Structures are given as C-alpha cells and as structure tokens.
C-alpha cells in the first residue's frame, strides 16, 4: 500500500480511496483535546456539587444540596403564587358572582375539571353525562334545584332520596295503572295523564312528595325557588332511572328508593363532601373546592 502512495510525504496512513481521499495522521486538534479534558473536569466537579456516587443506601448528596423534589417544590410554589390572585378572588365571591365574571369563570372551570374528575365523575360520568341510576348533571332537570346556591347545598351536605316501596301497600292493578300514568305523563310533558292515574296519585300518598302538580315541588316560592323533598318531576321528558318506560316505572313504584329491608330497592345517595357530622366533621373538600365545583356543575348545560 505505502509503496503505491500517490501522496508521499504528507503524513497519511497510506489508505487511499477514489484516488484522492486519504486518511491523515494529524493529531486531534488542540481545541478538541482541551474540550476533552474540560469534560473530564466537568464530570469531577459535577460529582462534587450534585448527587452522584452510589455509596451505601443513598447517593452522595453533593455540596449544593440539590434534589429533584426540592426543585419540584420550588416550581410548585411559583405556580401556587401565580394562582393566588385568582384563588383569593374566588374565596371572596359567591359562585353566582364567579359565573358572572368571564375571566374568572374560565379559570374556575379549568381548575374544577380536575376536581370533578377526581370526586364526581365516577358516578355522574365525564362532563356530567350521568350513569344508570345516577342523575345527568348536564341537563336542566334538578331534583333539588339548579341554582348555584342549591348546587352548593347539595355538594356540601349530600342528598338522599326516599320513596316508599308500594309492593305491599298497593295492589298490582293500582301499580299497573300508576306506572302507565307515569309513562303518559312523561310522553305528554304532564298534560296527558289518565283520570284513574291522577286519582290514585292524589289518594295513595304520592302527592305528599311529588307535589300537587306532580312536578316534585311542594311549595313554589315567589322568588322562583321551590321547596322539595327531592322527589322526581313526573311532568318532564327525563327519567330519573334509566332506561325509563313502563317496566322501569313499575319497578320504582314497587320497590321504592333507599328502603331498608327491601333488597331490590333503588339507590339514590349523594355523599357529603363538606364537613361530615358522622365522621368527626372531616370534610372531603374544602369550601374553595366546593365553590369551584358548583360553578363547573352549573355550567355543564342546565344551570338555573
């Protein structure tokens, strides 16, 4: 090879390709060597300043005392400080006032989305879409009222429905008549219930909870609010228990809601998220968090 070297005396290795590409024996440039030694020095310095050497259970802490969790906590503190100006505003306002402030509402909705996912979604579904047996929150039908104040009350104190199991109270024919009447009421939005159905509704005690107009309201207050025990509105197009219809209505009338001693009874329990008297007044959520959730639920599509 070397004897055929077309470029003698230029300090090449004798490896030549394509007639003129050849490998030279130049030493690495000085800057490269400097960079090499500098990287070594950096490595040593890094080992002294930062956690590095795995000696014993813990690595050496490094003289700067840096750690990932500390850095995270510092960053998190910065974030908390940034949020403080919104959080302070929210603390001083009612949910209704927050809803009226577009900027603050956006912030609250974004913050509450996580809270809703952690605390509400398991039963009420993503976006308040509801689940079998659990009410839809995105519609305009509210068992206990859909104003921000009522929603706040519901989340803070929880709710529990009650309906007698009529298995042993009514005859099968009466249950059949009432179930058909409920379906008629649903399909006609309260205008087409049969006479017999209305008679049974008024005489067999249904009226006590579902109200005179069968809309779940016991007393309508002049300010638009109403007094209710949480009984379903039988005059709207929404079924409290899916899938709705005759069989479903008959089942509810027969076995009731939340009846002890009736294994088939319907369940309707909204847990307490505020201070819970039965658990030493511990609260699952603070007032600030509940306030955000009120705004979120109210804005899902049916708030009043």
């Amino acid at each position: 090879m070397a004897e055929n070297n077309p470029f003698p005396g230029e300090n090449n290795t004798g490896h030549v390709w394509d007639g003129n590409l050849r490998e030279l024996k130049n030493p690495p440039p000085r800057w490269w060597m400097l960079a090499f030694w500098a990287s070594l020095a950096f490595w040593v310095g890094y080992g002294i300043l930062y956690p590095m050497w795995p000696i014993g259970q813990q690595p050496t802490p490094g003289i700067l005392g840096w750690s990932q969790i500390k850095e995270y906590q510092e960053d998190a503190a910065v974030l908390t400080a940034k949020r403080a100006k919104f959080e302070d505003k929210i603390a001083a306002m009612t949910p209704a006032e927050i809803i009226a402030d577009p900027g603050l509402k956006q912030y609250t909705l974004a913050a509450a989305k996580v809270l809703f996912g952690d605390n509400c979604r398991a039963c009420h579904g993503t976006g308040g879409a509801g689940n079998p047996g659990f009410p839809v929150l995105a519609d305009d039908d509210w068992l206990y009222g859909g104003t921000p104040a009522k929603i706040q009350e519901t989340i803070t104190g929880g709710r529990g429905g009650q309906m007698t199991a009529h298995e042993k109270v009514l005859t099968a024919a009466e249950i059949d008549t009432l179930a058909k009447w409920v379906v008629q009421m649903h399909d006609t939005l309260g205008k087409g219930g049969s006479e017999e159905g209305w008679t049974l509704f008024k005489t067999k005690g249904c009226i006590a909870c579902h109200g005179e107009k069968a809309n779940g309201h016991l007393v309508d207050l002049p300010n638009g609010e109403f007094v209710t025990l949480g009984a379903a509105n039988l005059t709207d197009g929404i079924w409290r228990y899916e899938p709705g219809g005759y069989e479903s209505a008959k089942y509810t009338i027969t076995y009731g809601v939340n009846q002890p001693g009736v294994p088939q009874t319907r369940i309707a329990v909204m847990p307490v998220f505020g201070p819970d008297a039965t658990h030493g007044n511990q609260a699952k959520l603070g007032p600030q968090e509940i306030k955000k959730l009120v705004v979120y639920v109210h804005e899902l599509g049916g708030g009043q």
Partner: protein
Amino acid sequence: MNTSKPSAAPATVDALYDEAVHWHVNTGGETIHAKRLPGRWRTIKWLTASVWLVFFLGPYVRWDGRQAVLFDIPNRQYHLFGVTVLPQDFWMLSLLLLFFAILLAVATALVGRVWCGFFCFQTVWTDLFTWIEERLEGSPPQRRKLDQAPLTLAKLRIKATKHLLWLIIGFATGFSFVSWFTVAPDLWGEFFTGQANSVLYFTVALFTVGTYGLAGFLREQVCFWLCPYARIQGVMLDKSTVVPTYDERRGEPRGRLQKGAAAPLSLGDCVDCNQCVAVCPTGIDIRHGQQEGCITCALCIDACNSVMDKVGRPRGLVRYASLDEFEGKPARAFFKRARVWVYSGILMAALGGIFYGLSTLDAVDLKVLHERAPLFVTLSDGSVQNRYTLKLLNKMPEALAVRIDVTGPAGLKLIGADAPIAVAPGGVTPAEVFIKVPRANLTREQEPIRFRVETVRPNGQVIRAERTSVFVGPPR
C-alpha cells in the same frame, strides 16, 4: 509552422515561480493563506457576497408603520410585509424549506456548487475575514512570516486589531440575526443598557463566538469536514453540469517555462506555476479534477487567465465547463434535461402552495369542537341539547366582536351567543355554546349543522368564516 509556443519575458518567468514553493495542497495541518488576485470572478464574488447586506439592513425596513419582517416569537406572530402569519399557517414553512432545498438542487445540477462558492455565509464571512487579514498583515508570504515570527509589540498590535475586528463583525452578525426576531430600533437601546431578554444576549454571544471561530479559524475545514451539503451536492452533479474545470487535454503534460527558451510543442499549456493552488481558499489543486474540496468559487479561473495573459497563451485553461464538453459531446440545453424539469416542477409546486397559502390567509378562522361527554342531553321539555366549543382565531391586529349564527334542523335554538363574542387579536378565543333542537325535528342520529361567524373590522371590511359540525341525537 511554429515548432514552439511563444516564450515569455524572463522577468515574468521569475515572478511566476518566485513564490511557487509556498503553494501546496491542503491537508488540514496548517492555515491556508490564499492569495488574492483581481479578476472577473473576484468581482462577481464581491457582488454576490453583497446579497448579505440584506441580512444586516433588512430589520430596519419599515412597512405600514411597523418592522417589515419581524419574527415575533414571544407573541407567536410572523410579520412579512403586509402579511401576518400565525403558527396555524406554519405548513407553509415546510413548503418554503422544500423550495430552498430544491433550489439548491437545481442550482447545483446546472452550475455546480454555486451556493458554496458565491453565496454561502461560511464562504462570504471567511472571505471578509481574510480580506481584513490581508489589509492588516499583508500578502500570504508576509502573513506566513508573521505567524512564525516571535511575539513582538508590533505583532501583538496587528494581531489584536485583527481579532478585535473579527469579533466586531461576529457581534454585528449576531446582533443583526436577533434583530429579525425583535423590534430592531428598540433593540439598540435595550441591548446596550442590559434590559434585553437573556435569550438575546445568549444568541448574540453564540453568534459572535461562532462567527469568530468558524470564519476566523475553521474556515475551509467547515466545507471539508462539517458541512453536510458539501457531501450531498456531489450526487447532484452530472456530466452536463458546468463547474470550474482544468482542461487536461490542453494543459498536460505540464511543464515549467525556462528563461529565454521557447517551450516545446510537446508540452501542454499548463506552465505549472501553481497560481491556481495559491488562490484557492480551500487549498486544493483544481488540476486533480472535480473533488470534494472544491467549492467552485472560480478564483482559480481568474488566476490561470491572468497567467495565460502574461505568457501569451489563450485564456480558458481553467474554465467553467461540463464533462460532456471535454468528451466532445454537444452541450445539452438546460431545458432538455429531465432533472431540470423535475426540480422545476417541485419548485413550482412549492411556490404555488406558498402563494395559495398567503393569498387565502383567513382573517378569522373558526374551529368547532363537538362535546363528546355527553354527546347529547335530553332536556326536561323533551328537546335535545348539544354542547360545542368554538375556537375563534383572530389574525387581525385588533380585537373583533364576532357574531355567531347556525343553520341546521328545524326549530334549532342557539344558546350562549346572544351577544357578539369579543375575540382577542392574534390568538384563539374559545366560546362555549349550546344548541337545542326539539326531538321531533330530528330525523336521524346525526344531523349536519353549519356554524357561520361574521365580524366587521374597524375599516368596514366584513370577515366571514364557516365550519360544518354535527348535531347528535338519541339513537333511532
């Protein structure tokens, strides 16, 4: 018939070979001090290099009361004269990159590495740096001598001046670069009073050091060992490509002129003066043929022509020529080469896409996101409600009040858009709306609905945008 070529004057011959001993081919071991000779290509090189004045002066051009070209990264806005481009329009950038990539390909296919030799910043800045070097330190032999001389006060003064000038040019380069990304006239005040963004300082420092190192020290090494294009371009050449080439058949066998003697006809026209090597900024010998170190700057053509003039031989021993020409084939017109057509086709497609994009930039862009959880909600009056998030992008510099209108199934009612929505300039504003339709009017599970937005700019221009979405009802 003559039996020999014309002889040259003895003084010319002496001068010709006087410095030849210094010129040898670059192997990367020492600094190349290329000789500067005036000539046609030298002049062209200065002219093409001056294209870079745009880089330094461009940021100060004004348009409609603001910087003509401003890449405003903090605000995610790119102002190009009358046009404002937002990140949403960035697909055009890929077309622009395609355009330049293919432009490089087509230029290289036609005239070789014309980018490298005449336009590349590495070439241009190196040229400027060595020009300064020559002004301060003198001709290449003087420079070589100075490099080897012991350090004296005089040498120190010359060297310090040179490095200072290089650093100033490096700084000007970095400063001009960041000027494209910030309001250039304001930058002068902010930068020198320490109030500019730290990213700017870092970038300017990076460019200063980068320019100083790359153009001052690495120079042709960049073309040899760092630049990927230099490697790619080799495959873009073909036999029809014209590049500076040594006419081997005319030049060989080369032979030195002898004083007072006529050169025999058996010798070629090359007088082996090594001037082509002397002027080469990458230190190669063009007589070895086309090679990876040649940036086709054509300075060897100037050098050889000047020598040919002196020794009374015809010019063009080194000239722009294609391999076909040397093989005696007729030169193909550029429009008869498939390569040119394919490249031009891609160029036109990319350019067409950019023009289409720029001419159809919507002032307001509407996107509609249908809520999926829940897909729909049955309301107490039996109607069906869907929720939508409208994303309104305002590309205008002023806030706009946008009206929303929807067409779809009969009895449709839009909730939450009674008042016009205020959309902030240069960004996306989300708006939540609900649509309610009586269940009886839904004939299928999914009904198409069309959102229309309309706004009037302060100058009276009406802007509209539309988007089709779906209205989802219960399964049927």
